[in-house]
Structures are given as structure tokens and as C-alpha cells.
């Protein structure tokens, strides 16, 4: 991180030749490395952080997947004995927690971090150090939650953690404490990330980029960040109440004191339903980028896609009680929420229509990224339609808490969020790493995942409608039925499907290693893409753009490459420039002075203090003091530290010393 202009001398007379930051500050010297592990540990570069988010999230994807495979192995036969009841409960709790909080959310954060600044033509996010802090909070929070496996058992109350089953008498291990505190920590990551990205998008767009010329992915991320901004505090309240209940004997969920257990449900789902859109909208954004590129057409009805995203964001706040149709709310609330839930199907339907219409009349190229995007349309539609069947509250009373619901939200979340994420990975991989992923392996990856997911989650529709509830560690022959609808058979099919799904997903990892060994550098613009992030080098330079582009069109990059030479109603597009030309032009007009913020210790130190405090809540109050001291010192160290490193931080402290400095003028 050395793209800093620095004065040659400090003010003050003496310039001792030998007293360098290394010798005077020692380990406390500000990290300014651009290579090696320190450059990653203390980085504040949104691209590095994006990659770190991504790698961590994918690790947790496979961890959560492993948990899922154990669950399916247990359920492959009735009265399975691979897991005990206790372990099974922990397994499904942690599977959901891992997938929701430690995979899909951070994966969206990975894409958002990496591509939002690139898509809006910014050099970094608004608060790079807060960005780094967010990542470390997420990572330490995630590790913290998972340490519970080795410290007496993980949380066992389900990811929805309904009170009073989450109270100490019903779950005496510390698992739920780990869960509560860990989610608080990852919540901080989400909240700071939300503020950061909203400010970035609102304040740091390239000249000419009005809100309605903003790439659709950025739009969806903006909406998601607003959802996070308002949803996280609600779950924070719920988690605090639960923490006080468990650790300080408060009475919030003590029924014998007159408490109403539905309070938790309301708080949880007021967060929980927007959370669903937090999970799915980033993927909607990704496929809305991918489909136009591989259809060679702009996104059909861009304003409507934006507004329907916003509508989902608004209406998403008024439907939480559809998770509680069986909770005994009373017919009026049930009716209101039932209708509101149907209303939200409309903007969702708009998106599907617009995606199909984007392909309509296009020039479709079926790359792996495109296949995943089309897969999303189809699979998500199934999930969306089964969603309509339980927006109908009376019918939901037959379906809720059965495997039918499991089928529904896996079609929505796996068929929606996860397929979208894979689409984004294949699409943006060459941008992030300068290497294409192998398409053959990619297609195997796609087809195995699609077959696997339909074999896994498809039969669950049947299992659910045949009356098998969720969250049972064993099933019984007595309720299995016979013939075609024998539940044991379909459970076995689902378990086999999950294995195929697991293999399919793992092919992605193989593909990464294979492609990075075998493939040469990727072309600059392998997909003939349309948006700003493709107008820079692959992988992008540290400062993203040599010159900040001025935006005139929604699909700026396309319009720089192609020219319409048709007349009137007749259109004829001719390529007038290649990506290399566009990049060369930019490099020729490079900005002379580029200030980038410098790396810092404080984000990681501050984030490290939080799990220390959390362990303190569980084990020893003095640890809270220690953690609090770390947090406080880091906060003030951070606050007093300038955003960019001063010349004193370099060793030797002369600007001529750093060879990388020349890059800025190159």
C-alpha cells in the first residue's frame, strides 16, 4: 500500500539517519507491507477483504454442507443411529446458522465488497478500516460460535431458537450462549458493513452515474444493506434479552413470571423475514448482471427490477408473522399477514418475468455462469410457487414445520441464493484472479448440483405433504406409510441426492485448483461484459482505476465497445473498441495523484477483543474486562490514527524508498 505522496522531509530540523520506524516503534510500527502475510492480515483493501470474505464463506459452506450430510446420513434410514438425539439437534441448529450467517451473508459481503466499488467507479469503500473490522468480526464471531463444538456442545435450540426452549433448564450447556454472543459479533460485522456500503454507494459513485444508471447488482446490494441496517438491531435486542435471560437470570421468557413466549418469535421474525431477502437479493443482483451479458441485451425493464427490489425491501418488513401462522395469533392478524405475504409474490414474479424477457430475443451463450443463472430462474420459481401455497394460511397450518417447508426454503435458498452465488463465482472469477475457471468441470459442477439438489429437496415435498415433521432425529416405520409414498424410500432418495449434491459442490474446489494450475491468464474481457468493473485490469490494480471513468449509460462498458450504426428502427451494432483499447485509454489519462488509505493493526485488534469479552460472559467476568480493555485501546488507537500512513511509518522513511510508488504514475 504505497501509493502515497509524501513530503521528503518532516518539519523540524534534525533528520537522524538511522532512527527508523522499525527501530523506534518496533512491533508497534504501522504496517505498510504490500506483500506477504502482513499485507493480508492488516489490509484494508476492499478487494483483498472481498477475497478473504469469500474464502472464509466457502469454507463455512463446506462445513455447513458436511453438517447437512451428517443429518441426511442419520435420516437415510428410519431410526438412524449415526447421531444421538442431542448431536442431531446441535447439527441442524448449526447447519442453518452456518449456512445463513456464515456462508450466504458473508458470501454476499464478499461480492459486495469486491464489486460495488468497482461497479460504481470508486477507489475503495467509504471506510476501508471499518470494512476490515467487519471482516474480522465475522471471522472471529464465526470461529467463536464453532468453538462451542469442543466446549460442551453447540447450540441445540434450532436457528430460530424459540423461547422458552432456549432457556437454561431446557438447554443447560453453553451452546446457546456461544450462539447468542457469536451472532452479536457477526451482527456487528453486518451492521458496520451495511453503513459502509450504503455510504459508499450513495456518496462515491463515478461522475455521471445517477442512481438509475447504477448496475443492478449494486442496486440490490444497496437494498440489502438497508435491510441489514434496520434488521440487525432487532435481532440484537432479541439476543440481548436471551443473553440476560440465560446469564443474568432475567425473566423475559420465564412463563412462570407471566412472560409471553411469542415476544421472542415476533422479535426474531421481524429480523428473520427481512433476513430472507438479505440472503436472496444479492443473488438476484448477480443473475441480473449475468443474464444480460450472456444474452447480449440490457436487463429487461431495469427500472422495474430496481423498484421491485425496493418493493420487496419494504413489504418484507410487513410479512414476518407468516412464520407464525400456527402460533395462535388470532384470525385477524393471520389474515392480514397472509394477504401481505401474497402481495410480496408480485414483485418477486416481476423479477422472474424480467429475467425471462431479458433472454427473449437475445443471443444466448451457455457458459457455466449463464447455466447457473438459468438454473436459478427455474429452481427459484419452484420454491416461489410452493411459497404461495403456504402464504395461504389455512394450507400453511398443514405444511408448516413439515419437510414441505424444508423443501420450499431449500429451493428458494439453494436454488436461489446458492446458485446465484455460484453464477457470480464463475462470472467474476477471471476478474478477481485473472484466470478463467474450466468450463467442462464447471458444467459438471452445475449439472451435478442441479441433479443433486432436485433429488435431495424434491422428495421433501412428498415427505412433507405425507406428514413428516421437521427436526426429528429419528422417524418411525409406524408413520411411514406403504407403497409409492413410503417415507423411508423418499428419505433414502433425499440422502442419496445430498451426496450427489455434495460431490457436485466439491467439484468447484477441484475446478479452482485445476484451473489455476492449467489455465494461462484470462483475457481482459472474456464474456464481452457490460459494466464498469470490466474496464480495469484483471485482477484490478490496487487503486482500481487509473482514471475514474465518467458514466453516460447504464451499460457503460458496452457502449464504449459498441456503436449502433443502424437507422431508425433498424439496429446494427459494430464493435468500435476492445476492452484493451478502453483500458489503454484510461491508463493514458491516469490520474496523477492517487491517495489510498493505509493498512492498520487496529481493525483486527478491535475485532479480537470481542470474542475475548464473549468468552468472559460465559466463563469469567475478568475476561470481559480484559477484552473490553483491548476493544477500548483499539478503538482509540484507531480513532487517533490518520487514515493514510505518515512518512514516519515507512522504513526507511523516505518516499523515494518504495519502488511501488512509481506505479501510481505509470
Amino acid at each position, binding site marked *: 500500500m504505497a501509493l502515497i505522496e509524501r513530503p521528503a522531509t518532516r518539519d523540524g530540523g534534525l533528520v537522524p539517519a538511522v532512527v527508523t520506524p522499525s*527501530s523506534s516503534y518496533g512491533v508497534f510500527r504501522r504496517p505498510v507491507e504490500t506483500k506477504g502475510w502482513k499485507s493480508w492480515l492488516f489490509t484494508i483493501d476492499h478487494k483483498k477483504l472481498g477475497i478473504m470474505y469469500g474464502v472464509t464463506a466457502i469454507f463455512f459452506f463446506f462445513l455447513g454442507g458436511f453438517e447437512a450430510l451428517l443429518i441426511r446420513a442419520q435420516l437415510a434410514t428410519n431410526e438412524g443411529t449415526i447421531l444421538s438425539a442431542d448431536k442431531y439437534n446441535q447439527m441442524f441448529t448449526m447447519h442453518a446458522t452456518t449456512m445463513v450467517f456464515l456462508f450466504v451473508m458473508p458470501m454476499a459481503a464478499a461480492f459486495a465488497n469486491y464489486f460495488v466499488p468497482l461497479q460504481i467507479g470508486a477507489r475503495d469503500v467509504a471506510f476501508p478500516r471499518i470494512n476490515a473490522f467487519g471482516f474480522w468480526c465475522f471471522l472471529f464471531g464465526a470461529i467463536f460460535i464453532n468453538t462451542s463444538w469442543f466446549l460442551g456442545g453447540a447450540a441445540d435450540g434450532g436457528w430460530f431458537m424459540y423461547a422458552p426452549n432456549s432457556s437454561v433448564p431446557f438447554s443447560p450447556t453453553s451452546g446457546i450462549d456461544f450462539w447468542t454472543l457469536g451472532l452479536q459479533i457477526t451482527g456487528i460485522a453486518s451492521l458496520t458493513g451495511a453503513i459502509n456500503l450504503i455510504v459508499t454507494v450513495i456518496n462515491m459513485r463515478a461522475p455521471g452515474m445517477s442512481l438509475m444508471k447504477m448496475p443492478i447488482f449494486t442496486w440490490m446490494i444497496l437494498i440489502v444493506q438497508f435491510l441489514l441496517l434496520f434488521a440487525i438491531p432487532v435481532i440484537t435486542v432479541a439476543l440481548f434479552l436471551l443473553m440476560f435471560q440465560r446469564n443474568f437470570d432475567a425473566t423475559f421468557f420465564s412463563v*412462570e413470571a407471566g412472560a409471553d413466549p411469542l415476544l421472542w418469535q415476533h422479535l426474531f421474525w421481524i429480523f428473520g423475514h427481512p433476513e430472507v431477502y438479505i440472503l436472496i437479493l444479492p443473488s438476484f443482483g448477480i443473475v441480473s448482471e449475468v443474464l444480460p451479458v450472456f444474452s447480449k441485451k440490457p436487463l429487461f425493464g431495469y427500472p422495474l427490477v430496481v423498484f421491485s427490489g425496493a418493493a420487496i425491501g419494504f413489504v418484507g418488513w410487513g410479512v414476518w408473522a407468516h412464520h407464525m401462522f400456527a402460533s395462535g395469533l388470532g384470525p385477524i392478524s393471520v389474515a392480514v399477514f397472509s394477504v401481505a405475504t401474497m402481495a410480496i409474490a408480485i414483485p418477486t414474479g416481476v423479477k422472474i418475468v424480467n429475467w425471462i424477457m431479458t433472454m427473449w430475443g437475445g443471443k444466448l451463450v451457455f457458459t457455466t455462469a449463464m447455466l447457473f443463472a438459468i438454473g436459478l430462474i427455474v429452481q427459484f420459481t419452484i420454491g416461489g410457487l410452493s411459497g404461495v401455497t403456504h402464504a395461504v394460511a389455512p394450507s400453511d397450518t398443514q405444511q408448516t414445520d413439515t419437510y414441505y417447508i424444508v423443501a420450499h426454503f431449500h429451493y428458494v435458498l439453494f436454488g436461489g441464493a446458492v446458485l446465484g452465488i455460484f453464477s457470480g463465482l464463475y462470472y467474476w472469477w477471471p476478474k478477481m484472479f485473472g484466470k478463467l475457471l474450466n468450463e467442462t468441470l464447471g458444467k459438471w459442477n452445475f449439472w451435478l448440483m442441479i441433479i443433486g439438489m432436485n433429488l435431495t429437496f424434491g422428495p421433501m415435498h412428498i415427505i412433507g405433504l405425507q406428514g413428516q415433521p421437521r427436526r426429528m432425529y429419528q422417524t418411525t416405520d409406524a408413520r411411514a406409510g406403504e407403497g409409492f409414498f413410503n417415507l423411508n424410500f423418499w428419505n433414502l432418495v433425499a440422502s442419496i441426492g445430498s451426496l450427489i449434491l455434495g460431490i457436485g459442490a466439491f467439484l468447484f474446489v477441484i475446478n479452482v485448483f485445476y484451473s489455476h494450475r492449467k489455465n494461462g491468464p484470462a483475457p481482459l474481457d472474456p464474456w464481452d461484459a457490460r459494466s464498469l468493473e470490466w474496464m480495469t485490469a484483471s485482477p484490478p490494480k490496487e487503486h482500481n482505476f487509473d482514471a475514474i471513468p465518467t458514466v453516460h449509460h447504464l451499460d457503460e462498458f458496452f457502449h464504449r465497445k459498441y456503436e449502433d450504426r443502424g437507422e431508425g428502427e433498424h439496429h446494427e451494432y459494430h464493435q468500435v473498441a476492445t476492452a484493451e483499447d478502453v483500458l489503454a485509454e484510461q491508463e493514458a489519462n491516469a490520474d496523477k495523484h492517487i491517495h489510498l488509505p493505509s493498512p492498520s493493526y487496529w481493525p483486527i485488534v478491535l475485532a479480537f477483543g470481542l470474542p475475548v469479552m464473549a468468552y468472559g460472559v460465559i466463563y469469567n467476568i475478568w475476561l470481559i474486562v480484559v477484552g473490553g480493555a483491548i476493544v477500548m485501546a483499539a478503538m*482509540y488507537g484507531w480513532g*487517533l490514527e490518520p487514515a493514510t500512513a505518515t512518512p514516519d511509518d515507512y522504513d526507511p522513511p523516505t518516499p523515494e524508498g518504495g519502488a511501488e510508488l512509481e506505479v501510481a504514475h505509470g
Partner: protein
Amino acid sequence: MITTGSKLLVGSAVAAGLLALIYGVANGGALGTIGLISAAAGLALLAGISTYGRDANVSAMDTDAFESSAAAQASATPSLWPLLIAVGATAMALGLASLPALFILGAIIVTAGALEWLVQGWSERASAERGYNSHARNFLIDPLEIPIAAAIVFGIVAYSFSRVMLGLPSKSSTVIGFSIVSALVLAIGAVVGVKRGASKTALTGTFGLATVALIAGGTVAGVNGEREIEVHKTTAYYAARGECGAEEVSADEKASQTVAGKSNVAAEVIFDGTTLTWTAPGFVPTVEGAAPLTLPRSNPNNVMFRNESGGEARLVIGMNPRLDDNGQPVGPEQICTALAKEGGVQFLTLIFDLPSFATDEGYEFAVPGTDATLEVVVP
């Protein structure tokens, strides 16, 4: 390479380690051994940091620097910290003999003083340049000093003043005291804000005086103790004495009369002036009322009492039998709601430990001063 500055630390660490070994073998005492091992580990850590940071070892880097380095040129500035450490050490010694709190305070003072001294000593030798050195000091110590100082100031004000108010003789005097002190703060602020020419000494004097007054007041009040605060009597208090009657008692003053959003209670008990009737979700209106109310056993039943009598009324629940802590049935016992105003509502959570047939008396709801009773059947 072991630098000069860390030799002492390395030596001490080794010595402590050896001592731990000897102590452990010879004496077998766990506490002493652990203490010495901890000391060895701590010293080794310090030695490591010192070595890594090349503290006090300019010569190791460059012999020229040895001559031109700050240590060789600038003289040390006067320091307040040794004094503070001495004060802290005294407090520790005194605390050891008397108050543990004083010992802890002393220990904190010594730690803080030592840290400040350490950093000052180090920063003065960082380079030959004063500005750089003070920057170096601030860089290290500010993140600790500023928040801790702010927290201490805040803590002293908030804690001392709360003690003063708790020491004041009555509720009204706290309002007056609180208002006076706040007004004083505002007034001083206003005066100082307007009088720009005020001398620094005067300002410092005023603030110093206020601080001393506050700490002194807090200490005096803290030593004197709080004023007598009476435990507020609750209906449970009267019920335990069997004084749960129709007349108003102190526990009924300002008793809350509304319950937010409580539907789906086990039963609503309604008093119309002469009789107690009940409704419960799911029971057909024609059957209700005349029959006894059935409530499940060992279950938190939320019951609402609604007073529609036109006057004040109190619901009393005769809890007989009830289990004591040893599991033996005891009774008779009462549960007593606060007096409900006309149209008022009381909310109760009742748990019946035993079936009503366990003794002859059973359970009943009653309104003292009237004949209204309602039998509760607990199967």
C-alpha cells in the same frame, strides 16, 4: 540475537524458571511454583518483545547511531511518574494491612505509573528530535490515556454525585440538590464562556475546587451511608399476614390497572358487584359461569381479573393446598391482587401444585367484603 536491553529480562526469566524448578522440587508447593513459572513466562515475553523491537539497542543496528542517537544527546525530562508510583506503592502497603480495595487501587496506580514511565523513558530515547519523540509517545499512550482519563472523570462525577444524592435526607431534597448542582454547572459554563479573559489560574482553581468538593462530598456521603429507604409494601406482604381485605392498603396506591395486549389467557374472571363469573377461550358462553373453572395443574395459568362492579374490588385467591419447599402440603395461603379500580384489570400468573381433591378446602377466587366466590377445579 539478544540485544543489550533485553539481557536483564532474559536473565531474569531464566532465573525465575530455575527458581520455579528448585522451588517445585524442594517445596512441592503448587502456588509458589505457578507464580514463579508465570513470572518466568511474563519476563520471557517481555524479553521477546524487547528483542524484537530492538528497544534500547541502537548500537545493535548501527554504530554511528550510537553517537548520534537521542540517548547520547538529549537529557531526560523531569517526570511525575516516580512520585505516582510511590503513592501507589504506599497505598498498596496500607491496603495490605487494612482495606483490600485500597490495595487494588494502589496496584492500579502503580501499573499505570509504571506504564507511563516506561513509555516516557522509551520515547525520549526514540530519536534526537523532540517533536518526533513526543509524537511517538502520544502514538503509544494516547489510545490508553484518553479513554481511561475520560472514564475516570466520568466515574468520579457520576459515582460521587449519586452517593451525595443517596445521602440527602429526603426525596424532595434530592430534587433540589440535583437542580442546584446542574444549575451551577451551567452557570459556571456560561460565565467562563462569556468571560474570555478569565485567567487560567482562576479557571483551574474553579474546576479544581469543584472536583475536590465533589470527591469530598461523595466520600463523606459514601461513609455516612444512604438515607433510610423503606421497602415498598406489596400485596404479597399483606397476603402473608392474612391482611388481604376489602380496604385499601399502601400496596394498592397507584397499582397498575392495565395489561398490554394480553389475549389467550387461561381465564378472565369478572366481578360485577355481586358475583364472580369467568370466561375462557373456547368455552361456549351458555355453559360458562355456573360451572367451576377448571385450570390445569402444575402449569403457569395467566388469569386476568376485570372489575366491572362500579366500585373498587380486590380479587383474592385461596391457595389450598400448596406445596412448601420440602414438598409438603401447606395452607391455607392466599394470593392477593391489588385493589382494582372501577374498570381496572389485574394480571396474575397462578401455578397450582396439587389437584384440588388433595384436601377438602380446594381452590377458590373471592372478593373480600362480598359473598362472591368462584370454585376452581384443578384435576
